[in-house]
């Protein structure tokens, strides 16, 4: 596939080579909605491209794709690619509830990227239309606001009703041209748009494929019959995994994430149904299978054909792996097929994969000098090997001054190679912080052993919940605005791993300063905070701690010191009022 300069040509070649393969989409209840061969998928995308062209979309224009997993999603996203426009996939809306912050964030993205078109579901289009174009600053934690009218917002069916432009031609992009933008959280929670090139996307797909197939085969051709996924398409893992399999002509079965979350067994049934299969998911997906699939439901589930279970995009937890292997080993799943890896949007997706073919391995976190006591440490004593760097990619561990550290010492992980992004769209400052002399500063902490990577924590105060990134800043802003303290009562949000609940991953703790001691008011505030966080993020808080105003330590510039507060919380030294 590397012989092709761009995604449309590479995808067209794959569709010709594997005429029988295609895409099957399932609904929230796990029922097949329909099936298209890859040739049909591409033909439909080209028609969508001609309609987008008729709408006035040109090469380089940003098109926001806010749709659930569906044929419509592929029409619009791939249609934009064929046109040379830049698709930007975003969450189609909160799973439960209409979220004010998420909407403000989407409008901020539209403003920041100067998007020309938004393609969304009818309900999201209605919410956008109802939202004031320039929301007051009080409705979002400082996101960009639109100073021009909202661009056109259309549903896929409205686009399908348009007449296609005549004489439309597929854009002939070069490998170094940007193909699409991938959203990822910035330091304040407002997304940054990662520029992924045609060459970078094709390289990373090839690298993922080689890593997944090794050591059994050189690539997935003839090794894998089908692929089943629920990971959303606006997530880098969902997107690149699916592109990879389309480029390799492997049959693709996709369900919306809501289907998996509602009934995790559907995913495993899909995996069991179609011969030799591969699947990817963040750690939380495997944990959800352990938690929500009862022993009685294991009956009749044959996972012996599940060739590779790729786990990346969030910290791999030892308790999850051992309980998953124990439970699903009874269904024939083989431990050596559990495949840890590491990736991030700024590297297109994949940076490292453990492709040795053995059972997952751990090493103790090195003690002594280095970063291991940083606030972002996961507090794990043993961490998983996520493998060596993928195809043509290099890894380095660095000290705070940027100098390389020897093996066995914990530092910031840096990566370089063909899959590394070219910068954030319209954000030279963030790009300069992240790309240094051709190396990507990942913000993740880890160490190398025999050239293989082990992750131990994060430099940034990032919360990764269910594989999605959340910045503490967003929760703190929400807490401060809920309490109505006028910004004088500060909040701190951080995550902890409770001993017995460790397998559930990160638990979120919210600490807020208050100016009174009335127990009834404190209890009411505590509930208000839980309700607000539930509405905006669909998250439950593991603990809400209310403390006296002025108690939270701050830096001289007024930033709350989350690491110090977290330590005090864990040692019980935080004087709580409620």
């Amino acid at each position, binding site marked *: 596939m590397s012989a092709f300069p761009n995604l449309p040509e590479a995808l067209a070649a794959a569709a010709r080579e594997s005429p029988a393969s295609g895409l099957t989409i399932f609904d929230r*209840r796990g029922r097949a909605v329909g099936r298209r061969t890859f040739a049909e998928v591409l033909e439909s995308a080209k028609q969508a491209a001609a309609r987008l062209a008729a709408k006035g979309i040109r090469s380089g224009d940003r098109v926001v794709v806010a749709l659930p997993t569906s044929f419509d999603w592929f029409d619009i996203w791939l249609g934009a690619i064929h046109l040379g426009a830049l698709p930007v996939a975003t969450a189609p809306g909160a799973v439960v*509830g209409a979220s004010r912050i998420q909407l403000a964030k989407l409008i901020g993205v539209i403003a920041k990227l100067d998007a020309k078109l938004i393609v969304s*579901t*009818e309900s999201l289009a209605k919410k956008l239309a109802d939202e004031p174009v320039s929301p007051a600053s009080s409705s979002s934690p400082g996101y960009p606001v639109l100073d021009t009218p909202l661009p056109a917002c259309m549903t896929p069916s409205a686009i399908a009703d348009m007449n296609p432009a005549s004489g439309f031609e597929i854009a002939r992009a070069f490998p170094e041209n940007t193909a699409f933008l991938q959203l990822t959280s910035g330091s304040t929670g407002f997304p940054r748009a990662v520029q992924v090139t045609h060459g970078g996307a094709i390289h990373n797909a090839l690298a993922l494929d080689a890593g997944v197939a090794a050591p059994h085969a050189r690539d997935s051709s003839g090794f894998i019959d089908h692929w089943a996924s629920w990971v959303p398409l606006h997530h880098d893992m969902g997107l690149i995994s699916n592109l990879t399999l389309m480029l390799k002509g492997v049959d693709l079965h996709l369900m919306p994430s809501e289907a998996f*979350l509602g009934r995790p067994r559907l995913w495993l049934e899909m995996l069991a149904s179609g011969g030799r299969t591969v699947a990817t998911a963040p750690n939380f997906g495997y944990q959800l299978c352990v938690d929500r699939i009862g022993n009685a439901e294991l009956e009749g589930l044959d996972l012996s054909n599940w060739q590779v279970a790729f786990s990346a995009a969030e910290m791999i937890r030892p308790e999850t792996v051992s309980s998953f292997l124990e439970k699903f080993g009874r269904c024939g799943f083989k431990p050596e097929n559990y495949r840890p890896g590491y990736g991030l949007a700024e590297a297109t997706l994949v940076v490292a994969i453990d492709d040795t073919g053995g059972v997952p391995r751990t090493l103790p976190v090195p003690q002594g000098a280095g970063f291991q006591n940083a606030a972002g440490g996961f507090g794990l004593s043993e961490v998983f090997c996520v493998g060596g760097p993928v195809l043509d990619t290099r890894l380095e561990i660095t000290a705070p001054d940027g100098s390389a550290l020897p093996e066995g010492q914990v530092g910031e992980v840096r990566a370089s190679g063909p899959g590394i992004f070219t910068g954030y769209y319209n954000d030279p400052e963030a790009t300069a912080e992240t790309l240094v002399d051709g190396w990507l500063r990942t913000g993740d902490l880890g160490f190398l052993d025999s050239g293989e990577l082990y992750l131990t924590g994060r430099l940034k105060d990032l919360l990764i919940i269910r594989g999605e990134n959340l910045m503490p800043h967003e929760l703190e802003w929400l807490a401060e605005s809920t309490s109505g303290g006028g910004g004088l009562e500060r909040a701190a949000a951080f995550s902890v791993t409770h001993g017995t609940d460790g397998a559930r991953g990160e638990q979120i703790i919210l600490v807020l300063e208050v100016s009174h001691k009335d127990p009834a008011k404190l209890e009411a505030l505590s509930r*208000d905070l*839980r309700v607000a966080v539930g509405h905006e993020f*669909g*998250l439950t808080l593991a603990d809400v701690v209310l403390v006296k105003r002025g108690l939270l330590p701050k830096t001289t510039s007024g930033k709350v010191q989350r690491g110090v507060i977290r330590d005090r919380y864990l040692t019980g030294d935080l004087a709580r009022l409620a």
Partner: protein
Amino acid sequence: MSETPVDSALAVLAILARETGIAASKINETTELVGDLGIDSPWALQVLVEIEDELDIEINDDEVANLHTVGDILKVVATRFPAPS
């Protein structure tokens, strides 16, 4: 099998009580799914599937996106079991 609006509402409360371990008598229309019952989004989706299966109904995606309180669920469910006129 629930056939009346009252039966279906009681069935929903029983499912929520069973899922969360919180007594049905402590759950009412204003109870928040996330804030009060601690049901986060993945869990909420599972609870909805339980409700759909037990009551033999389907809740569409647009309806799912607007459920905050127990009352919100009851309202949607009630549309599937209209009171006899």
